[in-house]
């Protein structure tokens, strides 16, 4: 049996409006309610659900950007809330995000090369950094010529590949892929799926794949967790979810996808 990389137990995330009249009682929105799942080393777990179901909130908590109201996140059996200083830095570099909005994910004031150099900051030798950048560009299918370009000079697909190369730079054990295909057209989506498969083979990392699109998820996922209104309603391996869905919401999602993508079922 594979070892657990991440274990999330009873994760609850609540949002409180930041600004508002000081003395008025402010309403609290519960985005994620008692969510539990684990990710094993080398596997791809897909978190699937409609917009607003709490998928990205879970990812943000896992990345350490959102403070959970309740519950725990264990990484390699360590509670991430107990991490500080260099341990936290090490954890952060082990879990890398690739965000949905490729236009917003690259610093508009920095060249691709400068961003890549930053991602390799523990390497003090410039020559080693350049060599590693060339390897990463090669792995994600990017041309060396984009090194001096700014993000607005790149296509959507190139931006996504740069974001992927940057995320791979610290040799992460887990990639959090938050709707990586949603802003791309069909041909780029197919290329990205193939690329993510190759990367997984080459780098041996695990994926937490967040998507609303079951059709795309089945090409990458080993297991699928279905989220609805902040809760996980069904978890199972990819084949079981597609062939023997239990929860009515999963059946509804599949039915909807079957209509949209008749060739995929």
């Amino acid at each position, binding site marked *: 049996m594979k070892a657990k990389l991440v274990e999330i137990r009873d994760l609850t995330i609540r949002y409180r409006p930041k600004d508002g009249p000081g003395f008025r009682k402010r309403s609290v929105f519960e985005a994620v309610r008692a969510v539990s799942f684990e990710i094993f080393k080398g596997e791809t777990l897909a978190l699937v659900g409609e917009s607003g179901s709490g998928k990205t909130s879970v990812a943000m908590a896992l990345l350490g950007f959102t403070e959970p109201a309740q519950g725990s996140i264990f990484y390699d059996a360590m509670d991430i809330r107990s991490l500080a200083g260099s341990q936290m830095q090490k954890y952060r*570099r082990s879990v890398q995000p690739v965000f949905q909005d490729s236009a917003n994910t690259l610093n508009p004031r920095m060249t691709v090369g400068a961003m890549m150099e930053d991602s390799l900051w523990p390497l003090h030798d410039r020559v080693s950094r350049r060599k590693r950048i060339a390897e990463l560009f090669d792995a994600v299918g990017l041309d060396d010529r984009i090194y001096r370009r700014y993000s607005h000079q790149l296509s959507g697909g190139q931006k996504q590949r740069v974001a992927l190369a940057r995320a791979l730079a610290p040799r992460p054990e887990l990639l959090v892929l938050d709707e990586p295909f949603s802003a791309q057209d069909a041909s780029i989506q197919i290329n990205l799926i193939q690329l993510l498969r190759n990367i997984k083979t080459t780098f041996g990392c695990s994926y937490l794949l967040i998507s609303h699109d079951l059709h795309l998820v089945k090409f990458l996922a080993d297991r699928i967790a279905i989220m609805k209104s902040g809760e996980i309603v069904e978890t199972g391996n990819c084949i079981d979810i597609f062939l023997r869905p239990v929860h009515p919401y999963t059946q509804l999602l599949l039915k909807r996808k079957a209509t949209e993508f008749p060739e995929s079922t």
Partner: protein
Amino acid sequence: MNFLQARRNPSLRIGAAIVALVLLCAVFAPLLTPRDPYLQNLDNILQPPNAAHLLGTDLYGRDVLSRLIYGTRSSLAVAMLASTIAVLSGLLIGLIAGFSGGIVDRILMRIVDVLLGFPRLFILLLALGFGYPSIWFIVIVLALFSWMEIARIVRGQVRVVREMLYVKAAQALGLSNAKIVRKYILPNVIGPVIVAAAMLIASMLIVESSLSFLGLGIQPPEASWGTILNQGRQYPVAAWWLSTFAGIMIVVTVLGFHLLGDGLRNYLDPKTRGQQAEK
């Protein structure tokens, strides 16, 4: 700066030319002045523009052109020094407030709110009334009551940029907060600050001229555009050249800084720069 890109930006070109010209006047004033700006000639008072005195003479027979050129030094020095101190203070406080958030942000912004509540010119007049109006005193007083707008702009921008995904990605890469602020946040908030700084210099020039005009700024016999305007106030028609040329200098310089700020904003934005290069 890429010269070809700058050429396609008329605001930047004209603004930079005006500001450069004014700065050159200030730096090379002793070489450019036809006469000693402090030399009085009571036989030659209030002469209209003529071949010997291109912009006429003042109440004490001093050459107005020479005094305007020397006035550039003091007016610009006060405006630029006060603006630099105000911008750096505002930038630092805005960055701390915006990036820290929480209680630090709330305390700093309440201080800004309180200071913004004071009428600036009134406070300046009060402070200058208590102390001797040396150049450094004016600079410090002006800077002390001018950093708040910059701090507010920076804080607002930082709060927006802090939530950008590229900042989250940088945090995930384990970069230090100092590096994130320096490379990911500061360059993305600096555009509006540069524009605000250029506008602030322009506004400082006007405030300094107003103070000198009221007799509370740079003191005679030191030359400044405000003191020349003050002299012209007594003879607005008979000695029209005094107010007119000092006024023109103020208006053109203020316009120059406004255009420069606007042009720099376009130039510093890589998206706009890309569009300009494509034209």
